[in-house]
């Protein structure tokens, strides 16, 4: 009798457990976003500063697509730090396309098997329809007279730049400075390191990402100069034209935000074709104009020239390839015990 009851009790426990577990399991299968009543939905997982650009671009693309195919397309956007966004796609966010800050972040998604290997060649110009570079944002009137990278190493200059060990975007700042010192000291690595050490000793607040650094500089009034992406600096200038000035250094680095179709998701959602149209449309003249308007450098050279008053086109730019590609740059500079640790903890 007692035994019987014990068994029944155990059975209830097991059944409850099974039901609850299967309920949890079902929840994850419920998503999926293909055609319902003829409307197509694609998801674009992007990074922080592209918010305004893609809001405008999506409107333009929807119009174009309706005209071309007669179908309505709805683009769902997601924004955040580039690395974190890549991670969310790896962990299962249902992105049809990714438009991230650096090719390396897309490589991470590729390594998870979600993007085909040859993505870099799928669209023109290494799949980067727009570029940007690293510039300085200083306070109005440039009270510390900051013109170039070596001004950042002077005593009494407070520099704001995010932590390259936490944000992939922040690595560009370090590499741009490295490129300058490399040219200045003719490749003498110990002198370059000294230069970087002096620069990073002047960093008064090191935020975890570009957005945080902008907040620290703009909202909290910290520092004399913010090392920033050109598009972010232009956006800040647009918002506070009275308070800041943009300084383009003599030497910088070409930042190539990249785009790719997340093949695994697009195949599953049946959106491979729309996704391709969506990214290809970025290269059209109309889209390139939008890109220039929103502070990114258009990859189309004729349109870029139209914006010569907005972008300093004389800056000497190196690319990530000069550092042997992102992976080897990461290994050499930013891994635990790499050059960044060496110059920063000195």
């Amino acid at each position: 009798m007692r035994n019987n009851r014990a068994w029944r009790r155990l059975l209830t426990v097991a059944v409850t457990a099974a039901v609850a577990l299967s309920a949890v399991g079902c929840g994850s299968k419920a998503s999926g976003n293909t055609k319902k009543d003829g409307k197509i939905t694609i998801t674009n997982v992007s990074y922080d500063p592209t918010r305004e650009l893609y809001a405008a671009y999506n409107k333009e693309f929807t119009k174009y697509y309706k005209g071309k195919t007669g179908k309505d397309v709805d683009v769902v956007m997601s924004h955040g730090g580039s690395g974190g966004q890549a991670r969310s796609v790896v962990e299962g966010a249902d992105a049809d396309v990714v438009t991230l800050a650096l090719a390396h972040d897309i490589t991470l998604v590729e390594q998870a098997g979600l993007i085909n290997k040859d993505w870099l060649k799928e669209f023109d110009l290494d799949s980067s329809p727009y570029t940007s570079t690293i510039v300085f944002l200083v306070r109005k009137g440039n009270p510390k007279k900051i013109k170039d990278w070596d001004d950042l190493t002077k005593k009494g200059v407070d520099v704001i730049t995010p932590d390259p060990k936490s944000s992939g975007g922040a690595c560009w700042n370090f590499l741009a400075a490295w490129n300058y010192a490399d040219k200045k000291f003719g490749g003498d690595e110990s002198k370059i390191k000294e230069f970087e050490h002096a620069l990073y000793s002047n960093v008064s607040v090191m935020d975890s990402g570009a957005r945080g650094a902008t907040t620290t500089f703009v909202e909290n009034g910290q520092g004399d100069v913010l090392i920033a992406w050109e598009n972010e600096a232009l956006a800040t200038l647009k918002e506070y034209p009275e308070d800041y000035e943009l300084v383009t250094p003599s030497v910088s680095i070409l930042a190539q935000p990249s785009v790719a179709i997340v093949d695994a998701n697009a195949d599953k959602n049946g959106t491979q074709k729309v996704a391709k149209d969506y990214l290809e449309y970025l290269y059209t003249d109309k889209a390139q104009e939008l890109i220039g308007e929103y502070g990114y450098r258009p990859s189309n050279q004729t349109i870029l020239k139209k914006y010569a008053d907005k972008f300093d086109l004389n800056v000497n730019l190196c690319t990530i390839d000069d550092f042997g590609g992102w992976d080897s740059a990461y290994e050499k500079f930013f891994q635990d015990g790499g050059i960044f640790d060496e110059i920063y903890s000195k």
Partner: protein
Amino acid sequence: MRSIASRNGKIKVKRSDRVIPGFGLSLGITIVMLSVLILIPLASVLLYSFQLSPDKFVTLITNRAVLFAFGTSISCAFIAALINCIFGTVLAWVLVRYDFPGKRILDGVVELPFCLPTAVAGITLSKLYSDTGWMGRIFSRIGVKISYTHIGLTIALIFIGIPFVVRAIQPVLENLDPQLEEAAYALGANPRITFFKIILSELRPALLTGFALAFARGIGEYGSVIYISGNSAKDHTQVISYVIMQKLNYMDYASATAIALVLLIISFSILFLINVIQIRQSKRTNYL
């Protein structure tokens, strides 16, 4: 409720007297919730961190930056929890013992740190306490920097920890038998002795609970801290959750979970220690 306390302190309840029906059903739900929400994620932390070879694990954990981050997290969370215990007691005391207009509102305000997104709190605090902000300006005049230092970091942790202490103490204070105080007075104790010997010893278990909760929350806190701490490896203002995020941002899951595992072990041992103290104490004062 009719119940018979047995010798070992457990309570035997007659079948018909159970409030929640079905021991099997409720235990089943408990086990599922526990495993889905707590045990499985924790087990996966363990599994992930075993991807590192033992010597890699050791070099990672004994890395200077990681060690300093552990030190910063633990010491700042400890100080913040300690300060919270003092001010939390005062706050709870005011809320329980006195009547004043706006008391209900103040009571509600205590819980705000719970519902405010931590990043919002962090950005607001860093702005307020930076040397151009309202509060920070005053302090910078006397040469004290708050934002981007350990002080700012501790302030953020005080902010998120205060509700734990207040809410732990409040009910105990409400149920405190006034006869105890009266008896102490009658026996000639002055207010100071009454507070420290009578009231505080009654509050001690609740204080310990509040301390443990605030401390545990503080050790793992991320959102509210990263904006105000400045995250400088040189000034040791990186907290451990920031170091974990550093690894995660480069998808180094193995290192991230390895540090998380050590953090878990440390937190667990501290909480365990506090529990032991609490049990000892309740045995002595016969208070449970």
